[in-house]
């Protein structure tokens, strides 16, 4: 990792703070006697920008953990969660839940198929029973249940 790459995090925060300061100013600041809607966000954004500026200079590189091969796995896991959310809205809970559990049990727990598959199916069904039947949460229509 490049020697200064770790400064990226404070830099992002600094830019975020400055952007928020500009947007807060457009919301009208008012004055301290009669604060406008933008005054408080402006103060918070200023604090954010100032602290980020300090960090840009003084932050300790040791705080930053290197990216590993595990990171790639986490990325895949996140993609699987995003796919789950999209599918969940389209075809209901059961199928996406089984798929997500399968991905995670295979990828991260490294369970063999003979364990992963039953665990995923049973898990999805149990959660369906808990949330839909017991708690009455209106999940989107489920293709398995022909909803």
């Amino acid at each position: 990792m490049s020697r200064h790459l770790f400064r990226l995090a404070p830099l992002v925060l600094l830019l975020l703070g400055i952007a928020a300061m500009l947007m807060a100013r457009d919301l009208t600041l008012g004055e301290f006697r009669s604060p406008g809607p933008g005054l408080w966000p402006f103060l918070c954004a200023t604090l954010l920008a100032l602290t980020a500026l300090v960090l840009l200079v003084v932050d300790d590189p040791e705080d930053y953990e290197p990216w590993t091969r595990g990171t790639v796995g986490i990325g895949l896991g996140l993609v699987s969660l995003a796919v789950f959310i999209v599918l969940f809205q389209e075809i209901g809970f059961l199928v996406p839940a089984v798929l997500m559990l399968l991905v995670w049990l295979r990828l991260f727990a490294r369970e063999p198929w003979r364990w992963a598959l039953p665990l995923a199916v049973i898990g999805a069904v149990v959660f369906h029973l808990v949330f839909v039947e017991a708690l009455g949460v209106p999940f989107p229509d489920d293709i398995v249940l022909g909803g």
Partner: protein
Amino acid sequence: MGILDGLGEGFSVALDPINILYVFLGVLIGTVIGVLPGLGPTATIALLLPLTYEIEPATAVIMLAGIYYGSMYGGTITSVLLRLPGEAASVVTVFDGHQMAMQGRAGPALGIAAVGSFIGGTVSVIGLILLAPPLADLAVEFGPPEYVALTAFGILLVTYLGTKHPVKALCMAALGLLLATIGQDAITGTTRFTFDQVELFDGLDFVAVAMGLFGVGEILYNLEQTEKAEQIKTRIKNIWPSRRDFRDSSGAIGRGSVLGFVLGVLPGGGGVISSLASYALEKRRAKDPTRFGKGAIEGVAGPETANNASSTSAFVPLLTLGIPANVVLALIYGALLIQGITPGPQLIDQNPDIFWGVIASMFIGNLMLLALNVPLVGVFVQLLRVRAGILAAFALLITMAGVFSVNNDPFDMWVVLVFGVVGWLMKKTGFEPGPLVLAFVLGSILERAFRQSMLLSGGEFDIFITRPLSGTIFALMAAVVIYSTVRGIRRQRRGRPAALYADQLESAAPGQDTPGAESEGTSWTPESDHDDATREVGPGERDGGGSTRVDIDRP
């Protein structure tokens, strides 16, 4: 309402069969997640927040409180048997607890921890009963400037006391305050930072933010760490400590109860700091400090008592002032807000069932924990066979289904995912999510109080200083800032780690005493100013070697 009337009402709430069931569930879940590495009380409470939507407010808090103090019990088990603290507050238990296990005394170590925790918890409940009502009476007189002072003080103490890098924590607190302003301005109705997204008009949902940062973020972070299968070889027998064990540790339990109670009440305090403080205190008081680190039972009894006492007394500021003292309490605060109840000085009068019910349930919960732990330690240990990967898969599915159930809105699922990524990145870059969430919760109170104060004073800032109470609090804040800044600079000059926490662990860690070794006092408790032992903590002791990190944002 008098204390006795209150307790009477409290027990009538707590002894309701439903509430008994939930306090049992709470302490059981708490113990289980305390044992399981990789899922702390903060993550668990965050993950279970949506479920509290479905139950009565008093019941919800009863269960969440049970998880919190239950996890303090559970963390002990893995500390003693595996040198692997299940949660951060049990880190110091490793030093002597594991030594006791190696000497074949794992049973008494766990037994005395359970008994000490019970006593600490009970003493703390009594303190809560005595301290909370007068404090609430005082707080009724508070005006907006006092609320500005108190909330700012709470955020400041959490950023300064409980974290490795105050500036980083302050930066996160600022971000939390900023995120809290998203949505419609409560006073003028102007929409702020919504980017014309209808979903954002009501602001970001607290549950989704907390679940993302703590639940998903922590799961992802732990997954990335290397995972080891753990084998328990220790046989546990004779859980009940001997009469001599009780005699040896009675002083430590007594002191731990008081210390834990006091440190728990302070904002930014909580389990980790109080257990460290208790260990340091016991070691200094001991006639023969060299026994510490070699299986001294006081080194288990004191810290375990203190962390339980503090997890109970941390409820004092929440239930009386409406200020959460640490992150777990911030989550419970959020759970109450979801139910439409704003914790504060009026809580005792307006919702006596919640206030007294929760207190009474703590008595029952502590009793249940004692009953559960002594005979069932062997069963809990088996939980360690569950691998983190399996746990993560199911926890994530609960998260997703759970957050949807709060508003039946898929948008919240995306919020969880985004904040999950943010939380994971924060952990990787050394930014702590605790101050962010605390500031996010307190942000709207702080803003409203600030704007009201400004209107009251006509834009003059001296309103914060001239009023006696807020003036005192601001003076304290200034003292904290100056003190820790000066210390930080001095420490950096001497080339010592700037990390507050590493230093504390170092000075509390057992080992050969090095007389005359230069050891700078640690700031978290006045007693530790002349701690005499300094030693490098080996990596195994510092992080337990497993997927559990010493992590200050877990109280």
